[in-house]
């Protein structure tokens, strides 16, 4: 068990390192660099900077050094908990993405919880009342949700929630709570604003978890021990909840690890459309503006968070289902 944990941890660390390389590789891919974008921006404001000045700016930002030096420098900073400096914001990257990262993760975690809360009861209901009107309805919505692109759904839901229900548009907080300190009211406000993003993000995952739960439960219900229990006169719901449901829940947990990267990916797109203060919109901006340390920092951190999330859900799975072999994984 301990060996398994250490091995998983080792893989996680390896993944973290790989993510840092990938992040750095990506931020160095674009032709040109931040100085190029910066000069372009100045040119639009009527300030023209020549090649000589551009070189001195590059030197100033350390962009003239070979990339491995830049990588090592970056890694060294990160070791000290400093993700570098955002050229565009003129601020340390840490300051730029602090709360946004937390909100990104809150959104992903809330979506997972939403998927569980919605999908498992519906999956059970669908299995127990197979072919009922509920089963059909949920199946229908599940499939449509699965196939509609997130970004499409996001804008439409935002528009109609405004037109029909007078929801405040976009964002994660109402104006009065945007900069307030954390309180019950602010939490409630956040929860309210997360409804639409969570629904959009959660539809695909919910649909597949409903299917998985339903299929597993149906398999489980056909097993002889259920018939035996039924013959003994155990009440139907108690019977279902006692064993079959527990068995059918394992995939829900194992799916969590698998779904996390998808949720984070999805949340970026949805955040861009809904203008949520998560890392999504600033990642897009940073990439466009070639604000490399900001972009790299975000890719790095969400990569890490996902690796850690995956690791945690692996542990959860081991804890929940001792049948999982330590060797094979």
């Amino acid at each position, binding site marked *: 068990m301990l060996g398994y944990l250490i091995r998983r941890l080792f893989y996680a660390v390896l993944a973290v390192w790989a993510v840092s390389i990938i992040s750095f590789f990506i931020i160095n891919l674009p032709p040109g660099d931040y100085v190029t974008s910066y000069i372009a921006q100045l040119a639009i404001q009527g300030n023209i900077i020549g090649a000589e000045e551009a070189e001195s700016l590059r030197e100033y930002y350390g962009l003239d050094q070979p990339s491995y030096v830049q990588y090592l420098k970056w890694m060294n900073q990160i070791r000290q908990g400093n993700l570098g400096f955002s050229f565009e914001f003129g601020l340390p990257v840490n300051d730029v993405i602090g709360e946004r990262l937390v909100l990104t993760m809150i959104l992903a975690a809330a979506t997972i919880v939403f998927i569980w809360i919605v999908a498992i009861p519906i999956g059970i209901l669908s299995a127990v009342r197979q072919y009922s009107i509920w089963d059909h309805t949920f199946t229908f919505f599940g499939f449509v949700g699965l196939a509609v692109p997130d970004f499409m759904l996001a804008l439409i839901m935002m528009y109609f929630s405004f037109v029909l229900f007078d929801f405040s548009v976009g964002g994660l907080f109402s104006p009065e709570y945007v900069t307030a300190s954390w309180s019950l009211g602010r939490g409630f406000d956040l929860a309210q604003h997360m409804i639409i993003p969570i629904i959009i993000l959660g539809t695909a995952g919910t649909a597949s978890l409903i299917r998985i739960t339903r299929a597993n439960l149906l398999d489980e219900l056909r097993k002889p021990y259920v018939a035996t229990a039924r013959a003994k006169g155990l009440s139907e719901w108690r019977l279902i909840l006692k064993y079959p449901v527990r068995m059918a829940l394992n995939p829900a947990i194992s799916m969590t690890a698998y779904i996390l990267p998808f949720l984070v990916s999805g949340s970026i797109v949805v955040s*861009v459309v809904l203008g949520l203060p998560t890392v999504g919109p600033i990642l897009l901006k940073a990439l466009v503006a070639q604000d490399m340390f900001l972009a790299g920092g975000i890719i790095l951190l969400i990569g890490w968070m996902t690796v850690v999330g995956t690791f945690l859900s692996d542990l959860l799975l081991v804890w929940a289902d001792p049948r999982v072999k330590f060797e094979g994984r």
Partner: protein
Amino acid sequence: MESNPVEQELAPEIEDIVEERISVASQRQLIWWRFRKHRVAVVATALIVIFYTIVIFADFLATNVPADSEAFRGLMPPQQVHIFDGWKPSPHVCAVTGARNPITYQKDYVTDCTEKIQVRLFARGYDYKLFGVIPTDRHLIGLSDDTLRPEDYIYILGTDKQGRDMYSRLLFGTRISLTIGLFGVALSLVLGIVLGAVSGFYGGLIDNLIQRLVEIVRSIPSIPLYMGMAAAFPHDWSILKIYFAITIIISLFAWTDLGRVVRGRFLTMRDEDFVTAAMLSGASQRRIIFRHMLPSFYSHIIAAATLALPLMIIAETTLSFLGLGLRPPAISWGTLLQDAQNVQTIALTPWLMIPAIPVILVILALNFMGDGLRDAADPYSN
């Protein structure tokens, strides 16, 4: 023990005749029979076939040059094609006129069904080359030549803000989006099969390294990586180059699923008795891989590829939507939807969102088809 085993074996003649068809059926036929029972998958497959027919015949099906714009008929709602005029079959569309309303600034259009514009099959339209070689100007539907006036037009799905025909643009967008998916899947297949096969066939350290790589790639959210790499394209690349670059990027991250399937299959297959049997009968390694192993799971690969295709399409659409993928003047589902991604479209000109319908349909259909294939892929499972 006394009875002749040979005679005993030959006894159930009648049963043999009944099962004759199945007995001589090849694996492909068995898969097909099993797949056929999956009615939704069959419908889905038919739909996919239709869509790829559109890919091939986009020009023939189109009614207008997709880039042809006319500002003063912009944002025109879809025109209904009337098959009958009263009881008389006379396909036509009604004349539509309109202008920008100076008070609301909306485009107001009015249909005047007293003025009928005749529509016919195989009408003459713009010149194009069928399959890229046969020059022709025939289109499936179009305005009847004899009654054609310069002010007549047909916009089955309306027009966009530049007055371009949404229907024709949708057809050409379908061409790009569906082929980009196919190329991407093909590339992922190559990556997945090579890496999966190497991993599964040789095992050991190589397998372990590849598996760790797969794990890492899968644990990283793909969209930020797509975004990062897509943002890195030199944007002066031609549409074709960007098209292939996007394909490559998407497949760089999409091969892992296929790789896992292939590896898993190789691992099981390597220990199958019939593979050992082939080896012991003196078959070469090449024959073993290509005659025995690969055919045993190509149906699984097809199923996995089918299930990977929707992910490709969604990835392309999403990237293009974010402005990092294909860009105008390229027409793809992503760029069409990007045009529709605004408040005024939802509020005033919802037909611009019609490109979402084929996206949804194709994604659903591919999923159903892939499921059907996956279930039917192993005809010997029961």
